[in-house]
């Protein structure tokens, strides 16, 4: 997987200086700001000024100008060069000696400070001491030792020696830690404590050791089999190794890339995923170095710069290759220097958006969904990919520059219908998720309209809730769409939501009539409920006829189940409704039942009307011979219930009709209403022979009246049982005896005894008699007790009265009324039990003392 992370740009083509000497070769380089230093194999140090000059085409180019050169007169190659700009010096390693030159004129320092026997040196980029005018340098010596120096402008100050088991070939330093490549292994040395930790062995035959400081306390080493090994100062690895190329000459690091050089290639690896990203063929490479984040590479004669391609471009390139994850990782981890968080976020969002559409086009829906959300993609951008779904009211145009190259979903799917379905399913899920969240903010109408379209297409059950509750659907467009897919019930709901009840009713009435079909439509009940709940009499009256013709009993609910908070209107006055309902007998009954039993309206007219209607329906059933008994019974019990419960109807009217038909039970009730209990009970006993009902009758008709009334009723009943004029009175002995024996408390014994036929044995009524005797004894004794107690109480009161009156009260002119404080002129006065004396007319309440407010009770002993 490749990406163009860097561009190779020539910095200094041929060394002009050495044109006369063909043998001269670049040995080492260093770049510091605009200064570029070259150390040659024939002991020259050459100084160039290098300036970046972008060409008109926007590419980077370099302009170089030679400043000067210095021959060190050692006839040995310059092994290493490092500029120390803080000191205005360059450190030069040549012939195992470390010396210093002035950075600008390349003259040796006056002090002549130097270190001998050095094989390699490095600067501490993470210095331990904070002096900005000194540089910490670590050197590897020919002997088994590493030395630390602090270098100032003209002095090299020895700090520390560290002994190591073998000679160090390469070293790197960070803080207190020196990572050293020894002859056969790498080790990590803490120069403060002298602690040495072996890392891992390498084969010095096949591997050129490399120690590259990557970041704080982390180094990259070249391991066996060309593995680039990451090591922290703790001696462990926190990243997996990366496979670098063989014959590695050196590595550089520009976040997030590791650039490595061998004799044929420049190779770029990402430190993020350890994968190779780019390879640039480069023959004869010798040195590689990163200087202030710029990578330079030299061959024997030429110097090149590796100019990083802007990370935005790299991300764009990755996205173009549809390498989404890589692109986003890079975007997140790239060097965002010079970008504020907001700016970066803006750029990153755009990449996320592009990525989202890439994942989308590859049907990676989960990833796409997250990216759509994360990238805050304008939902219309996505919708515009679905032909026909975008609301026509939206004048959306895709953002420019384009986020994707997708024409539309149909184009993506070619003719694959399954895939199209998947895409629509994705859109549905996505919209459902963002609906009502901040992601969907501001697009409610668009989202709802599109969802409606999607639901309508597949007849999804969510369609109904979508429309019925807080919908933002665009009416006109939704109507067209719903009609197209024949989602009529939803259409009705939509009209209803938008207050177009008439249109809604048109749809629903057609649905009920079966002219159009929709399986989601719940049926007539729904329409009735709707009509009963809308506050629009015009509409109700318009459709009520139709509804009643469909189903009277159901449709009457339009009137009976009006919302409780609906103010009473002229249009729904009971009289009006009843008049109207005249054609629909069942509906009338239901409506009257509602008025009487639920609303508890006490109008004779309604009650009589209902009773008559009940009666009519019973009569109708009776006429018809082949009606099931249950039906008839049902109808009659309804009638009886009504007759019994209500007191408002015109009894005579009903009675007349009932009598004609020999409806005895009803007759009995009606006689009861007329207080003609004798007649009623005769019917019950003789005609119906229902003795339980007869007894019941006594209870029911005496309800709410005093006990003597009930007694009277029972006596009437008994009289009916024992009527001597009755021919078949023997049959009634049993119920009579039972009645006596059970309801004994309700009878006046003396009257009963008169009634009883002479031929009855005492045995027959023994139970009644004994209970009666017991009862009257009890009654007699209770009365006596009461009488005695009353007498006692009377004595008590008398005594109290005597007590109070026994002391004389002297009245004279000095005595004043306690209330009005005037003298007494009449001989009458009032004395309260507590001695307060007032005029008769001043004693307003004889139980309350007018002065102290004390209460006096007549029976209270203490008063």
């Amino acid at each position, binding site marked *: 997987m490749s990406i163009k992370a860097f561009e190779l740009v020539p910095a200094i083509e041929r060394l002009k200086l050495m044109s006369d000497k063909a043998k001269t070769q670049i040995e080492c380089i260093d770049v510091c700001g605009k200064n570029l230093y070259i150390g040659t194999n024939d002991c020259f140090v050459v100084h160039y000024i290098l300036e970046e000059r972008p060409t008109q085409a926007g590419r980077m180019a370099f302009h170089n100008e030679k400043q000067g050169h210095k021959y060190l007169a050692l006839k040995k190659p310059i092994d290493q060069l490092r500029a120390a700009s803080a000191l205005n010096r360059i450190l030069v390693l040549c012939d195992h000696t470390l010396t210093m030159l002035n950075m600008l004129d390349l003259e040796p320092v006056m002090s002549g400070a130097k270190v001998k026997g050095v094989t390699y040196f490095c600067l501490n980029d993470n210095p331990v001491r904070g002096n900005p005018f000194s540089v910490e340098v670590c050197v590897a010596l020919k002997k088994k030792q590493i030395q630390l120096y602090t270098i100032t402008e003209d002095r090299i100050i020895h700090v520390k020696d560290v002994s190591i088991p073998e000679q160090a070939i390469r070293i790197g330093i960070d803080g207190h830690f020196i990572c050293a490549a020894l002859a056969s292994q790498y080790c990590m040395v803490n120069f403060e404590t002298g602690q040495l930790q072996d890392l891992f062995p390498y084969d010095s035959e096949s591997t050129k050791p490399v120690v590259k400081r990557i970041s704080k306390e982390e180094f990259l080493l070249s*391991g066996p089999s060309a593995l680039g090994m990451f090591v922290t100062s703790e001696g462990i690895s926190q*990243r997996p190794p990366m496979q670098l190329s063989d014959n590695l000459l050196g590595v550089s690091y520009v976040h997030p890339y590791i650039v490595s050089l061998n004799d044929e290639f420049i190779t770029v690896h990402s430190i993020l995923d350890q994968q190779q990203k780019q390879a640039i063929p480069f023959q004869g490479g010798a040195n590689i170095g*990163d200087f202030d984040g710029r990578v330079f590479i030299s061959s024997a004669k030429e110097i090149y710069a590796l100019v990083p391609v802007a990370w935005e471009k790299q991300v764009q390139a990755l996205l173009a290759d549809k390498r989404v994850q890589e692109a986003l990782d890079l975007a997140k981890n790239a060097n965002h*220097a010079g970008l504020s968080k907001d700016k970066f976020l803006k750029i990153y969002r755009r990449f996320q958006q592009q990525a989202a559409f890439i994942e989308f086009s590859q049907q990676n829906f989960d990833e796409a969904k997250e990216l759509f959300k994360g990238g805050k993609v304008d939902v219309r951008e996505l919708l515009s990919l679905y032909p026909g779904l975008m609301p026509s009211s939206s004048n959306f145009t895709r953002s420019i520059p384009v986020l994707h190259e997708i024409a539309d979903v149909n184009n993506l799917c070619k003719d694959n219908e399954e895939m199209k379905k998947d895409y629509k399913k994705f859109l549905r899920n996505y919209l459902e998720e963002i609906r009502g969240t901040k992601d969907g903010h501001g697009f409610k109408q668009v989202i709802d309209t599109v969802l409606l379209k999607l639901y309508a297409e597949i007849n999804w059950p969510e369609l109904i809730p979508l429309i019925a509750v807080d919908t933002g659907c665009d009416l006109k467009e939704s109507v067209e769409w719903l009609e197209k897919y024949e989602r009529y019930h939803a259409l009705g709901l939509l009209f209803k939501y938008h207050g177009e009840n008439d249109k809604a009713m048109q749809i629903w009435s057609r649905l009920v009539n079966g002219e159009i079909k929709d399986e989601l439509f719940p049926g007539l009940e729904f329409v009735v409920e709707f009509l009963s709940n809308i506050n629009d009499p015009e509409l109700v009256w318009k459709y009520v006829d139709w509804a009643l013709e469909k189903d009277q009993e159901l449709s009457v609910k339009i009137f009976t189940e009006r919302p409780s908070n609906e103010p009473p209107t002229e249009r729904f006055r009971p009289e009006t409704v009843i008049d109207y309902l005249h054609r629909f007998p069942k509906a009338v009954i239901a409506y009257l039942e509602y008025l009487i039993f639920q609303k508890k309206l006490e109008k004779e007219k309604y009650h009589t009307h209902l009773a008559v209607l009940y009666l009519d329906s019973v009569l109708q059933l009776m006429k018809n011979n082949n009606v099931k008994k249950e039906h008839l019974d049902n109808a009659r019990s309804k009638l009886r219930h009504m007759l019994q419960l209500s007191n408002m109807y015109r009894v005579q009217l009903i009675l007349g009709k009932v009598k004609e038909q020999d409806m005895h039970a009803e007759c009995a009730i009606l006689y009861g209403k007329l207080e003609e209990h004798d007649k009623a009970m005769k019917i019950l006993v003789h005609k119906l022979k229902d003795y339980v009902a007869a007894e019941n009758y006594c209870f029911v008709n005496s309800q709410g009246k005093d006990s003597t009334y009930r007694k009277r009723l029972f006596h009437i009943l008994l009289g009916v049982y024992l009527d001597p004029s009755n021919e078949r009175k023997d049959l009634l002995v049993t119920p009579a005896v039972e009645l006596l024996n059970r309801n004994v408390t309700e009878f006046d014994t003396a009257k009963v005894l008169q009634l009883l036929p002479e031929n009855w044995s005492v045995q027959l009524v023994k139970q009644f008699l004994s209970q009666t005797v017991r009862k009257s004894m009890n009654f007699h004794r209770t009365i006596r007790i009461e009488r005695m107690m009353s007498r006692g109480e009377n004595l008590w009161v008398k005594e109290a009265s005597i007590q109070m009156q026994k002391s004389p009260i002297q009245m004279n002119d000095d005595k004043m009324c306690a209330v009005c404080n005037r003298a007494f002129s009449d001989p009458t006065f009032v004395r309260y039990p507590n001695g307060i004396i007032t005029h008769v007319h001043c004693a307003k309440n004889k139980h309350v003392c007018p002065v102290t407010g004390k209460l006096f009770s007549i029976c209270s002993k203490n008063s």
Partner: protein
Amino acid sequence: MTTSSADKRKADLKVIILGDFAVGKTSLICRYIEGKFRPHETTIGAAFFLKQWGPYNVAVWDTAGDEKYTGLQSFYCRNAGAAILAFDLNHESSFESLWARFLPLLDNANEDCLKVVVGTKLDLLQPGSREVTQEEARRFSREINNNIDLKKLDREPYFETSSKTGQSVTEMFEFIYQYCLPLSEHEKKSAVETKRTSAFNTSTVDLNKPAVSSPKRTNCCSR
């Protein structure tokens, strides 16, 4: 994906897997991390996976079984809190290698390093093809863990797994975590939750994370 976003965080536990070439170390880890079985290329050097365990980060290091990397393996064993010693149940030689080649490497690991012996490729086991008995593997697992108190474990540190079917794989890893980073029941539950959501983590930008800038640039004037 896991490595790129998470490598900056320090791991609370390092688990290393060792074992002979082609015993299925990478497959074992992939079965655990990705939940699926797929063929793998030979691991080069080592590979690295980060896993959430409750509040902890666990670094799982996969090593290359190839003998040429032996020198590196001992380096990668450094600071390991737990080691998985994997062998192929169908090859006795791979079991012997554990003792001969890999056990000495663990000298670099933590002193109290838990060593779990894992037999792989259980699904390939035919009647008669087993070359390592359960008893000897169990005995081996007890012997090599004499540095720790075995009574603290609720079972012997020996598992027989199949990366193809996933048998015992998750149990084995969670056995290790539960020993090294014990979680309460409640935390365990939420650990399962994060397992589910972690897939989305990488698609968001962490605004609290400091912008990564080149470390070289800042040091310019101290040269």
